[in-house]
């Protein structure tokens, strides 16, 4: 197998694995935090404003780990430096 197809195959498979595995942890964390926030809201409806704000900030912090995985998989798919290097070598 030549290096172009090897790098292409590795990039595509790794991109899928990256976003697939990387989404598990944040999904569990977000589900847990939303459940906790909902029960807190049910207990203290007066504090809804503060709980919601803290929830959104916390969700964004948790979600950012999934976003990192997404950015890595996007780089692997669309801006892969190894792929560009191999293609430019093959072209030149």
């Amino acid at each position: 197998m030549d290096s172009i197809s090897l790098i292409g195959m590795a990039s595509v498979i790794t991109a899928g694995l990256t976003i697939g595995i990387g989404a598990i942890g944040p999904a569990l964390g977000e589900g847990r935090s939303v459940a906790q926030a909902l029960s807190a809201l049910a207990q203290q409806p007066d504090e809804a404003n503060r709980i919601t704000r803290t929830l959104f900030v916390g969700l964004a912090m948790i979600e950012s780990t999934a976003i990192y995985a997404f950015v890595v998989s996007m780089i692997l798919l669309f801006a892969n430096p190894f792929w560009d290097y191999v293609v430019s070598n093959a072209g030149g």
Partner: protein
Amino acid sequence: MDLMSIKQISPDQVIFWHWGPISLNATILFTWAVMALMVLGSWLITRRLSTDVHLSRWQNLLEVVVNGMRNEIRDISRQKPDPYLYFVGTLFLFILVPNILSVIPGFITPTASLSTTAGLAICVFAAVPIYGIMSRGLPGYLRQYLEPTVFMLPFNVIGELSRTLALAVRLFGNMMSGTKIVAILLAITPLVFPVVMHALGLLTGVIQAYIFAVLAMVYIASATRAQQQTRREHKNNERKGENS
């Protein structure tokens, strides 16, 4: 989506015009457009302010926005909002306006470029020590790096750097994923579904602008507030000692 092909993940790669080493890419062009829109709009609105009962609807809009930002800052920092309003409010509006404008066809939001978000995150990185030193003095600010024990110094420094990186990559990743998902869906189901994802992108954009501003405020507040709390605790302890 017409300007950016599916292969380009950053609007930096869309180059409209270049002359020698200088090139004008989509990020710079749309940042200038947003800046011009915001400056011109606020100049037009604040040209004729009235304290009367009758005010123009645009002045009403700006008053609602500024008042909302002041209330949020007061809630988060538990301090007077005025010194922070200019910086945090500017960050919020500068991220919010292009994120909302991204529904306009042909407009690529500059926040979908890592250069813009890294610039904004570096502004926050610089603003935290500036506000901290202004309110606590240089020794007081530097002492917070040794807060629990001296051994935490490297972790505090690494935390400072990594949260700046996280701020930049979070905003970039969210906005870039919005545009990328619409572009991919246009290739798969071009009829109605991209519109739904675009609407979802609007929601994400507003929330991300809010979160960027809130996190900047939280970081600044944590650098300025700690000493006031410890001072209050000291006073309480002294009072308790007197009583007993």
